[in-house]
């Protein structure tokens, strides 16, 4: 097989919303690199031989090719660079591109920087910008925003799988409360409160069955991660590097209604799948990653995950797409709190999108960094306590997700 891909370090800025404490995008990127250098003194900007930039929308950034500002600011003139954009899966796709570059043998040390500044417009304007990633000719003005499309999918999924509003509320509570142990998480920095299932149930209706606290946060934030060869990892961070042992990237229709009766899915998985309810691209990308990493039983072989909980309902749907439960077992799987910190496969110990935040281009990178911290034993240093540390974690999954499930990537990371 092609050569091993490793991660030796990374960091995010605090995730926030509004006018407080913002450095600038290039200032934030520089601070992420500085923090990485504090963790990994052997890592130098001179070692990078490619930069990949992960950024979703110039509508939010009010600047075309903003990666050129960051790249120049970091003093990396002369180094090859390009930007990856793939909706909510921009971060995962940038990581995929970086891993391919190392795997090919053409690059040895690749920096990935992701960011979004969603607070440059109002919340409702921001929702409309994101909705422009739906098919605007058919979907933009009807209902209008992504949570509504997700709610329509989740409503049927929950009925088909006997999952209740309270069940998914537990997921929202879990992730937002996990974020209360993470000083960089937006929920910790802004709302700063512990939630109960009742709080979620009583929060305002967004789109049935999704309520305010079932939703992730609009954010501003920057993230940086170093993807490299094992030779380089052994040189600069021999005791704290992790390997990307598996990865998968898959796709589905832009309009959720178009995945009914889709002939290609039918060929893959038989009739009736993914319906309008399951994330077929997530299942497909997971199968690729599991095969590559030799994962036979994900529930046994994987210790934890950092996954794309844009909505509490999506996290539940993702459990199923990752093969952790099926139609008969999913409700019990959630009720038994298998994915909480005391469960056998904690999900989103870092807070996830619900707690840490969702600055689109930075999100998948943030998830990767949190998974890296768990596997490298850095949680006691990075979080406020060890309550959100997965003890003796050997293997984690990172999931990044776009559109209505339109592009999804999964990565299997292992402690070296």
């Amino acid at each position, binding site marked *: 097989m092609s050569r091993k891909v490793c991660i030796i370090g990374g960091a995010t800025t605090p995730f926030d919303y509004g*006018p407080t404490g913002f450095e600038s995008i290039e200032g934030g990127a520089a601070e992420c690199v500085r923090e990485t250098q504090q963790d990994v003194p052997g890592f130098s900007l001179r070692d990078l031989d490619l930069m990949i930039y992960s950024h979703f929308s110039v509508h939010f950034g009010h600047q075309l090719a903003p990666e050129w500002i960051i790249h120049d600011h970091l003093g990396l003139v002369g180094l090859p660079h390009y930007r990856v954009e793939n909706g909510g899966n921009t971060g995962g796709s940038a990581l995929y591109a970086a891993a391919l570059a190392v795997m090919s043998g053409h690059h040895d040390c690749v920096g990935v920087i992701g960011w979004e500044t969603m607070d440059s417009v109002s919340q409702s*304007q921001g929702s409309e910008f994101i909705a422009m990633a739906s098919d*605007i*000719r058919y979907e933009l003005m*009807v209902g209008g*925003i992504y949570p509504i499309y997700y709610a329509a999918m989740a409503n049927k999924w929950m009925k088909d799988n006997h999952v209740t509003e309270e069940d998914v509320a537990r997921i929202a509570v879990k992730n937002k409360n996990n974020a209360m142990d993470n000083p960089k998480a937006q929920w910790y920095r802004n709302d700063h409160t512990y939630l109960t299932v009742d709080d979620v149930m009583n929060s305002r209706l*967004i*789109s049935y069955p999704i309520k305010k606290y079932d939703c992730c946060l609009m954010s501003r934030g920057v993230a940086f991660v170093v993807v490299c060869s094992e030779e380089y990892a052994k040189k600069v961070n021999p005791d704290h590097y992790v390997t990307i042992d598996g990865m998968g990237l898959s796709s589905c229709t832009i309009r959720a209604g178009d995945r009914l009766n889709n002939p290609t899915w039918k060929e893959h998985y038989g009739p009736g799948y993914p319906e*309008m309810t399951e994330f077929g691209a997530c299942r497909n990308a997971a199968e690729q990653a599991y095969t590559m990493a030799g994962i036979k039983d994900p529930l046994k072989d994987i210790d934890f995950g950092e996954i794309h909980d844009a909505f509490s309902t999506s996290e539940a749907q993702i459990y199923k797409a990752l093969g952790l439960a099926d139609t008969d077992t999913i409700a019990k799987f959630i009720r038994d709190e298998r994915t909480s910190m005391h469960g056998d496969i904690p999900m989103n110990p870092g807070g996830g999108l619900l707690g840490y935040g969702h600055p689109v281009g930075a999100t998948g990178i943030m998830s990767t960094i949190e998974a890296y911290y768990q596997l490298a034993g850095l949680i006691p240093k990075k979080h406020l306590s060890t309550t959100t540390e997965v003890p003796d974690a050997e293997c984690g999954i990172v999931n990044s997700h776009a559109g209505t499930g339109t592009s999804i990537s999964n990565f299997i990371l292992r402690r070296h």
Partner: protein
Amino acid sequence: MTVTLTMNKKNKKFADAPVFTDKKDYRPTGVTEVGLTFVGHEISEDRTAMNQFLHYDQLYTIRHGWNSKFFIGLLEGKIMGTRCPKCGDTWVPVRTHCWNLNCNLEHTDWVEMPLTATVHTWTVAGWSGRSSLKRLPIILVYALVGDSKVAIANELHNLAPWDVEFGMPLQIVFKPQEERVGAITDFHFEPADGWTPSPMTPEKERIKQLVEPVYDWVKTLK
């Protein structure tokens, strides 16, 4: 010599341009595209942070091209679909080439669809984008029109939000002709004639409880 060559190129015609004669302008009064303009700023008390306000509005031309028949159909009160002559799959929203890989992007035929549909899934929205807030609460359904293989999203009117049901039969209702703009919002769904909602259930009560504050909130919007 060079000049002559350039002129020859200019005279060459590759395709006939459409002649646009049926023109409508329904932009709200006072909306103009001024381009990029700095319109203000704010500076913190300690003068360490500055925010600048950039106004940025653009007029887009959505060139519907080969999909135009669907949108012209809306103006005429019709739902146009497409159908693959090879495999028979039918779509609303339309596809101008077949999605079946075995059909090798076969060009599809236009078909007029019946104005009936079935609910595949639904939600009741209590929040939306800036342009939709005053219409809340909104019942959004994904519905299958006629024998379409795919579902299309649109609003369901003329029904209490808690009464929407999976599989319920729908009719497609167009706005009055003079209000149509050739966009998806020219039509909405309504329950089919003769259909009546089932009695109240705990779930319906729950939706009612969630939706009632939305009615009050919308009244406070200017």
